[in-house]
């Protein structure tokens, strides 16, 4: 029996590894997954860049372009609303890291509070993305959604790449919300530790990190 095992039944003490210090197996596995996921996003963003860079027309978004190219008009992507979504994800990142901090300090209630706020931030982001796509049946104002306004998947590279990249990211947010909800339940039941929260946090921060790049490349860089 090691000293750690006699100290506490559940306390796993990771030995100091010369190259990777005291990183836990779960954390290392999550980093490996995130790297592979990062390559998936890289592939999507790079193909987006190649298609956009080689296209003469990227988004038939003005009447001038319609008359010049004879294309069907598509909506321009809104910056202000997605900036708000970016703000939401940044907020949820800070609440995630606060949740982990509370757990490290032994404050389980605090960890639950911050983690709950993180999940709420993720849910709001998803509602925002649904509103952007579908307009949510006019529930939140006159906006009817990009699909209704003519941004159809498969119609142009502009539309297809937009839905592929933001949709893939949205699926990650959904996965994150489900994952963090499961961790919240586990934490409420006293079955998680700070390492569990840190590993879950890695996934959530990655989702935020990717959105930072998606926001810039898809929404901010002008034609």
């Amino acid at each position, binding site marked *: 029996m*090691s*000293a*750690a095992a*006699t*100290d*506490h039944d*559940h*306390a*796993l*003490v*990771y*030995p*100091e590894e010369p*190259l*990777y210090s005291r*990183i836990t197996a779960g954390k290392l596995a999550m*980093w490996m997954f995130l*790297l592979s996921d*990062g*390559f998936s996003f*890289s592939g999507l963003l*790079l193909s987006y*860049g*190649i298609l956009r*860079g080689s296209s003469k027309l990227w988004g038939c978004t003005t009447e001038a372009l319609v008359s010049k190219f004879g294309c069907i008009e598509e909506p321009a992507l809104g*910056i202000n609303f997605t*900036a708000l979504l970016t*703000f939401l994800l*940044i*907020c949820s*990142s*800070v609440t*995630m*890291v*606060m949740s*982990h*901090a509370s*757990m*490290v*300090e*032994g404050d*389980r209630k605090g*960890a639950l509070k911050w983690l709950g706020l993180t999940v709420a931030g993720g849910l709001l982001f998803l509602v925002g993305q649904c509103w952007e796509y579908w307009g949510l049946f006019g529930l939140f104002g006159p906006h009817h959604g990009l699909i209704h306004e003519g941004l159809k998947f498969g119609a142009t590279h502009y539309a297809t790449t937009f839905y592929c990249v933001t949709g893939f990211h949205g699926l990650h947010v959904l996965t994150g919300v489900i994952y963090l909800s499961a961790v919240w339940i586990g934490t409420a039941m006293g079955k*998680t*530790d*700070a390492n*569990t929260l*840190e590993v879950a946090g890695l996934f959530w*921060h*990655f989702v*935020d*990190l990717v959105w*930072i*790049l998606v*926001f*810039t*490349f898809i929404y*901010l*860089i*002008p034609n």
Partner: protein
Amino acid sequence: MSEKKTEETKTPAKVVEADAAVRKAAVTPDDHGSHGHAAAGHGHAAAGHHAPNRAQYWRIFFVLLVLTILEVGVAYLQHYVGKTALVSCLVGMAVTKAAIVAFFYMHLNHESKVMRWSVAIPLMFPALYAFILIAEGTYRAVWGLKGLGL
């Protein structure tokens, strides 16, 4: 420096023992009630290597917020600023924000140098490819296809 040397001379068994002692001291009465997971599951924090820095987390949050506001502001300058400068500025700010999230929120600043490079090096290749694409795209936009001899 001397602290580091002392760490290095410890045998693995001694390190584990010392760590277990620190963990025991760090476990609060509340932690005992929940099997002490909070402290026990986080060796670095208990050993004083990875204590959460809440003030720093909030500072990082404000830096990210300011950079986001700047990004949106810069995006609206598209009719007044050259495209090369605009794209460079936007990409630069996005990469800075992404690096800040990875370094501080994903705790890469607390990981070993090897771990940090293990994450950074593989991601440098798509980043390099993206840089080449953006540079080529900007070149085409500024000088047209004739500039490439096509």
